């Protein structure tokens, strides 16, 4: 069994040219951790998640997923990334999205698991519709299903609660708690207090630098966001 942490970053830096997005971040996330990534706007949360997903290239430093450098096929197989705004094909139905995303990641029995997720997020009745007709909330649900329908050991989610209705928000909290219980590591950028009871750790960012790394509580989040 691998002893590598699920996610490890070393001096991870992103310089956008007109300013630093992230400055020399060192972080280690182990299996079974649910990390709430918190900070004010422009703190570098989305940059950090994009870097770990291999979507943004670091200017300096390194990151590994399960001991494998980010951006490699192996790291991509282990990482599921959900951006803040769901990205969907306009010409594929939700069911078609599920089929191809799941198959590209080698999900076995994807039909049953896909149906289960559709049911969980109450999207079954819209499963054969094209997402072009969806509201923000429905698109978010579809995006979440696509992020969850494939195997991963690291889940990176950027503001997943935005646009979701209350039942879906509670469902998402339950799903994340279950994933962590199964050994996955989750890094979730959110200020949603509903996640506090199931989160194991809070990481605060400010101006691209680590401002907090420790226990999570509503007061800590308030401090990190507004303080």
């Amino acid at each position: 069994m691998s002893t590598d942490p699920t996610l490890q970053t070393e001096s991870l830096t992103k310089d956008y040219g007109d300013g630093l997005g992230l400055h020399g971040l060192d972080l280690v996330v182990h299996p079974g951790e649910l990390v709430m990534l918190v900070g004010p706007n422009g703190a570098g949360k989305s940059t950090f998640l994009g870097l770990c997903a291999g979507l943004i290239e670091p200017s300096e430093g390194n990151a590994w997923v399960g001991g494998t450098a980010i951006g490699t096929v192996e790291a991509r197989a282990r990482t599921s990334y959900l951006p803040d705004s769901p990205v969907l094909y306009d010409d594929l139905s939700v069911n078609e999205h599920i089929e191809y995303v799941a198959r590209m990641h080698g999900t076995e029995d994807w039909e049953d698991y896909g149906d289960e997720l559709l049911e969980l997020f109450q999207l079954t009745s819209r499963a054969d519709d094209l997402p072009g007709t969806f509201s923000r909330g429905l698109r978010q649900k579809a995006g979440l299903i696509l992020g969850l329908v494939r195997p991963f050991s690291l889940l990176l989610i950027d503001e997943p609660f935005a646009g979701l209705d209350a039942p879906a928000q509670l469902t998402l909290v339950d799903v994340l708690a279950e994933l962590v219980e199964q050994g996955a590591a989750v890094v979730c950028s959110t200020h949603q207090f509903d996640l506090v009871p199931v989160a194991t750790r809070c990481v605060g960012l400010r101006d691209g630098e680590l401002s907090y790394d420790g226990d999570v509580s509503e007061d800590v989040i308030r401090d990190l966001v507004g303080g």
Partner: protein
Amino acid sequence: MVTADSTTEAVPPGATAALADLHRARRHNHRAVVHWVDALYRVYLTGLGAAIVVVVASGLLPHEPLDPAGVEALAAEGPAWLGLAIAAALAFGLRSGSRGGPLTLEAATVQHELLAPLPQAVVLRGSAFKQLRFLAFAGTVVGGIVGVLTVRRLPENEVAGVVCTAATFALAAAAAAGIAYVASGRRLSRWAAGLLALGLLGWSALDITAGLTTSPATMLASLAFAPLSFDPLAVVGVLAASLTVAAGVGSLSGLSVETARRRAGLVSQLRFAVTLQDIRTVVLLRRQLAQETPRTRPWIRLKRGGRLPAVWRRDWHSYFRFPAVRVARLVTLAVVAGLALGFTWRGAAPAFLVAAVTLYLAAYDAVEPVAQEVDHPTRWDDLAVDPGRQLLLHLPAALTLMVLLCLVSAASALVLVPASVVADLTPVLVVPVALTAVAGAAVSTTLGAPDTAALVGMGADMMGLVLMLRLVLPPAMVVAALAPVLGAGSDPADLQVEAVSNNVTYSVFFAAAGLLWLRFRKPNRI
């Protein structure tokens, strides 16, 4: 490097087949929403457009066969000149590649396919082949048209002439894409790509001046002239183009995912702006795509204060902050315009349209201060000057810049035209052409996106006409100003300067109409 596929062990079984099925499903869904009558109608329109181009160009071009001396000169000089055009296409490819192009993926492709556990080359190959296929087809069509229009003046086998020209253009287009893939896959910096592009252009220019065939671009161009005078080096040119395409496809795995994502977002906005005919938004998005930002330190810093009018000073502040790449583009456009006018004078009449379009494009940058007013309507509206008058106050600086660029065009025309001809025509043409270009670009910039609600109310036919006029009228002003060049005659000793001068006067009326239109623009109407 983030995109390197250091291992392929993690590729799930069946993932590649799933990717192929995904693409198949998308094609199927796409076909399902396109009615075959619509598809046929598009084919019909394209065919009709191509036929019109051929007929019009055929009428404009001389018909009489070239004399033996002309044929000999064409066979000797033609490959080098066509090679220069091919080098320009390759330079354009290098430029695009250094910016992460020419592939423009959808955001969903980046998210679901490039982040999937599949080798990047496998994901990108389909899009690259599709693009190469399209470019080769477009090259074949354009080359075929050029071939049809030229073989009738030459004593060569007509079919062979058309086929060779079409093949040359197709290979050149594919090679331009290939070299772009190499540049993006190998992460060539802009400077490296620029230097390489300059090298290719310089090499072709050397072939022209020395009368040699040393550049691969010239060698490929020799293929088009093979029926006239076969040069075995044409085979080397074909091989070089094919190798460039192969190297490009082989470099796909190095494409930056970050750049692909940035381009995906901007290109979708760009397409939307193009659909809306919102030219200003298109210009702004294109600049973002090229990461073209104003210089922090101006080329020349104007002294504070001074007696010059504030608007004039503000405009030069803007020009002096143009990034090097924009300055280079303006000069290149001016040089291309000059060379196109040179070819016009030498008998290739339609080339004057190229000159008009390039100068019109240059004018878009010259009217940047006008565009800044339009981009910030609240600030513009707050001024203690009538909004339309404020727009006109920006034009003297824009006109000065365009005059300078037109003088660059005149200087570059000297390569193809006797100095006496340039000296006689330049004073007559420069100011009217610069004025119409500025007026046309300013009108187009301030037009903004069309009011779709109002257009729909006009009915389909009227809407189509209005949209077409919005697009065509501004550049038509420059065409009108340059068209009199066609009547200058080809004899330097008997140049029709007076006729040109008289005809150019009419174009000033178009410019005046444009300026009048600008005078009554208001922020809330844009």
